[in-house]
């Protein structure tokens, strides 16, 4: 009897004293066939929701996790919202106590603190079909200065006529809550253009950089746009005469 009471007491201490919570029914149900229309799960991702607080929306399906890898900063509290597109899976960080079942129709929410940079394997420990043993992902807890939720996209001309300006539409999205102070750097041919920017938290900054093609000269020029660790690059052709549809140079999207 003493033993039993002691055990129950320990568990209660863990719950009350240490704040260890069980996965439970706080999340509403969700239809697995409509994940693509769901605002949280149509784009599985990590989001910052507070200072050092993050939310990760994860979809488990045979036999992968999305996103993979998941990246979060150190010293953060991350809530994982995990759901399944098909059968029952699990979302388990190997070698830790972060471990939950993932049931289609339900959203498992588990919160954990990550104090130090680390790499964890994410595995499915519930049999989910013939490729079950291949179902794995990674979670990287990265140093704070290496972590960002910045997204860079660049739309640029493919071809410009000698003498015209080549334009680069740069969009920087800051997914974090703090302002992002950084610089956009464009290198094209021998030219370098730099612009210091401050992207407000949870906001997007758009700018257009222009380069006079005369400075570049005729020919193909590789270009690169850099914001912190993110780069986009492509090639710009400067030609004597645009062959056809002369002014209609809405330039194809850059290559990734």
């Amino acid at each position, binding site marked *: 009897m003493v*033993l039993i009471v*002691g*055990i129950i007491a*320990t568990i209660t201490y*863990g*719950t*009350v004293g*240490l*704040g*260890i*919570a*069980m*996965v*439970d*029914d*706080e999340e509403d149900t969700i239809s697995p066939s409509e994940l693509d229309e769901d605002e949280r799960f149509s784009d599985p991702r990590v989001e910052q929701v507070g200072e050092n607080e993050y939310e990760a929306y994860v979809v488990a399906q045979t036999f992968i996790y999305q996103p993979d890898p998941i990246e979060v900063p150190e010293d953060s509290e991350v809530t994982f919202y995990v759901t399944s597109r098909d059968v029952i899976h699990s979302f388990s*960080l190997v*070698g*830790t*106590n*972060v*471990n*939950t079942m993932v049931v289609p129709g339900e959203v498992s929410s*588990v*919160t*954990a*603190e*990550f*104090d130090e940079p680390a790499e964890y394997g994410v595995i499915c420990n519930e049999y989910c079909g013939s490729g079950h043993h291949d179902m794995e992902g990674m979670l990287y807890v990265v140093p704070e200065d290496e972590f960002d939720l910045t997204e860079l996209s660049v739309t640029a001309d493919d071809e410009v006529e000698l003498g015209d300006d080549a334009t680069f539409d740069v969009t920087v999205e800051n997914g974090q809550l703090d302002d992002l102070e950084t610089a956009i750097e464009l290198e094209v041919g021998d030219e370098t253009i730099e612009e210091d920017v401050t992207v407000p938290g949870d906001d997007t900054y758009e700018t257009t950089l222009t380069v006079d093609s005369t400075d570049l000269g005729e020919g193909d020029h590789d270009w690169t746009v850099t914001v912190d660790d993110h780069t986009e690059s492509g090639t710009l052709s400067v030609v004597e005469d645009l062959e056809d549809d002369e002014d209609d140079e809405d330039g194809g999207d850059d290559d990734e």
Partner: protein
Amino acid sequence: MSSATEQNQADQGAGGPQLDHPVREIGHDEYDPIGTLTLIMLYFLLLAFLWVFMYFVEFLGNDPTVIGWIGTGVGMA
């Protein structure tokens, strides 16, 4: 001990149902399961020790752990 052995052999000689009364008959009132209590106490101590070890060393040392606040679960609110 040795006398017990002899008695056992004597029983065999009689060819009776030896092991029903192999050495001596112990009734309910005279039987004191001291050995059982010893073993069970040892087992309990082991269980208690291992429980504490598993919970406080293996489990709590296996960070990160799922956390949250009591009351967020509707059941206990």
